[in-house]
């Protein structure tokens, strides 16, 4: 008979889990494996709340298994290391993002793009090498193979740095990979939420000119005055959109809701790139002529490999880039999920795990 989550592994662990498709989270006792030779044990201090957590908790993608402990924007401290671990010592500050395993042998794993490995193991809701389910960072501790742990730089606050492990890398990776990081280029950012506000910050740090494209005129002041965007377009304003036609080298589209691609494609210069990092779940209409006559690309991107995640977090520390966050106690998480659904957060919730996740 299958062991219960509490008895599956030798070390006690505690977190909050969703139990069913309502997505409501509640206290959950479970267990973690012992550290093997390559593992790093981490006491979790903070964990960001990502929109993916919401999707998974409510089984919106159809493959959630309950109980489900979400959380893949993890920052903590090393408490134990396996005897083959080389990069970390007890006491080090570390981060963990969206993956905790892969095949380690395929072309993707060998090319520092573990996130595209066919056998990637996600931080939660996936099956680990030992056949057990993975549980995420809404918990007190996590044990992760060294390859999938990042060094957390000094000079970066742990709470506001946590969202970089998913939101940060998700926008950093395509800005770099698609060459949208060169000073003088013009990049659009669609949507000013968890992903979008970080895209603006990274792009500005690269010396790129940034235009935020949003349905909400009320976001203009923050986009420009607080986040440093160079300009702002209201996507439903036909005149503004027409004036900006053919002006952007690339666009990072962070919006998951169903929306029209063609006005965004029109904003691109010839050979421009529309990078989708949000995941609308229904197909979007794509007209061919603008692509043909402009050699324009629509491309997707999903998180990033471990090497570039380390590069990203180091770059963030050097350039003072953190997420704009609202720190919450664990007990607030269900309210936070409701507010996240309405877009009522500037711009990421981060759970104060160390101080508020209490087994009692």
């Amino acid at each position, binding site marked *: 008979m299958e062991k219960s989550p509490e008895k599956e592994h030798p070390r006690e662990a505690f977190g909050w889990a969703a139990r069913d498709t309502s997505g409501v989270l509640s206290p959950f006792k479970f267990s973690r494996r012992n550290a093997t030779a390559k593992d790093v044990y981490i006491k979790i201090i903070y964990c960001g709340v990502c929109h993916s957590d919401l999707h998974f908790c409510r089984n919106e993608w159809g493959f959630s298994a309950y109980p489900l402990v979400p959380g893949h924007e993890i920052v903590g401290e090393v408490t134990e290391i396996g005897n083959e671990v080389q990069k970390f010592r007890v006491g080090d500050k570390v981060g963990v993002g969206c993956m905790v395993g892969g095949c380690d042998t395929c072309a993707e794993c060998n090319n520092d793009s573990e996130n595209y490995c066919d056998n990637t193991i996600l931080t939660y809701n996936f099956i680990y090498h030992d056949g057990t389910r993975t549980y995420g960072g809404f918990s007190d501790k996590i044990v992760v193979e060294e390859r999938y742990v990042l060094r957390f730089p000094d000079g970066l606050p742990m709470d506001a740095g946590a969202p970089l492990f998913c939101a940060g890398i998700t926008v950093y990776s395509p800005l770099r990979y698609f060459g949208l990081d060169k000073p003088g280029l013009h990049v659009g950012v669609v949507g000013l939420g968890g992903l979008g506000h970080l895209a603006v910050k990274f792009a500005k740090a690269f010396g790129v000119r940034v235009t935020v494209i949003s349905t909400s005129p009320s976001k203009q002041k923050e986009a420009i005055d607080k986040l440093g965007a160079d300009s702002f377009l209201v996507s439903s304003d036909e005149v503004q959109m027409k004036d900006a036609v053919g002006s952007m080298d690339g666009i990072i589209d962070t919006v998951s809701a169903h929306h029209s691609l063609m006005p965004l494609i029109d904003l691109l210069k010839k050979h421009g790139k529309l990078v989708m990092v949000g*995941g609308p779940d229904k197909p979007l209409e794509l007209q*061919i002529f603008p692509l043909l006559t402009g*050699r324009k690309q629509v491309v997707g991107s999903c998180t990033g490999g471990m090497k570039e995640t380390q590069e990203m977090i180091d770059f963030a520390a050097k350039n003072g880039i953190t997420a704009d966050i609202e720190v919450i106690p664990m007990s607030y998480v269900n309210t936070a999920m409701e507010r996240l659904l309405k877009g009522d957060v500037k711009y990421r919730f981060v759970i104060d795990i160390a101080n508020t996740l209490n087994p009692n």
Partner: protein
Amino acid sequence: MSLSSEEHPQPAFGWAARDSSGLLSPFNFSRRVNGENDITIKIFYCGICHTDLHFIRNAWNSSSYPMVPGHEIVGIVTQVGSKVQKFKAGDKAAVGCVVGACHACPNCEQSLEIYCSKSILTYNSTNLDGTRNHGGYSDNLVVNERYAVLFPETLPMDSGAPLMCAGITVYSPMKYFGLSEPGKHVGVVGLGGLGHVAVKFAKAFGVKVTVISTSPAKQQEAIHKFGADSFLVSTDEGQIQAAVDSMDGILDTVSGVHSISPLISLLKAHGKLILLGAPEKPFELPVFPLLMGRKMVVGSACGGMKETQEMIDFAGKHNITADIELISMDYVNTAMERLARGDVRYRFVIDIANTLLPLAHP
């Protein structure tokens, strides 16, 4: 009754469509004086591109009549302007889809004239002086030397003509998107004018090629005639499933309405689906598969002049020509009907020099 459209000093004769029926008929018109940067070409052959069919029937609502189509032109230079450097009289020359651009923008600076916002197409386009352009279903053409390529001696003029559109349309994206590197695996969707030429170029690059088609009947030719390594029937779910995640890139040459979701599934991570055809309805783009594999969907049209010269030289070196059916000028309307049905292996080419007979004036 005069059929002429005399805006220029040099007489010309061709066949033009008069309205959206697309029926072509004899047409007297004129060409500009050969300027200092121009060459005049006596046209020998002109390929029939599917785009010609679309334009003569006003499929894209942008046609202006009378229209002389044709942008797969090969001929002999009869006159060169005083500043012309690349050509002399007697040279073989070829012209493709574009005959002018601004020459000052970043696209022109990189010899990507086709992507210049002021590009002037070979036909159905307006010149700087406000007159309309007429294409290669005609006896002569005057063109700025920048927009003509030296046609290799080793290449037959008739079966080389389609390379000026079909050839560059597949060559350009294969080069630009890194699909010409030996060892890559490229899919070619559709085995028509573009598709068969794509297979030939890809094999010459040393790339593994899978032809993807709705017609099982094309398998024999794909493999034995054109040298494709394998063949997939796109409506066969089992075959598609077996090939998921196997291709570095796919050239989609199909103009009919079709789904791109199965094609996206055939791509490896970081793979590229290159759309070359122009279906009448928009595609439905599933976003998740793009995200999960960092996959790309992109469009491409013709190519720049520098790479067109490179392409035709490569074809000359590797003996790449189109498979053609040579026709007389007066067969052109029948050819258009057959092209609309896909009934051609694989490009019609008009024998202009021998069969384009001037209209007898009354």
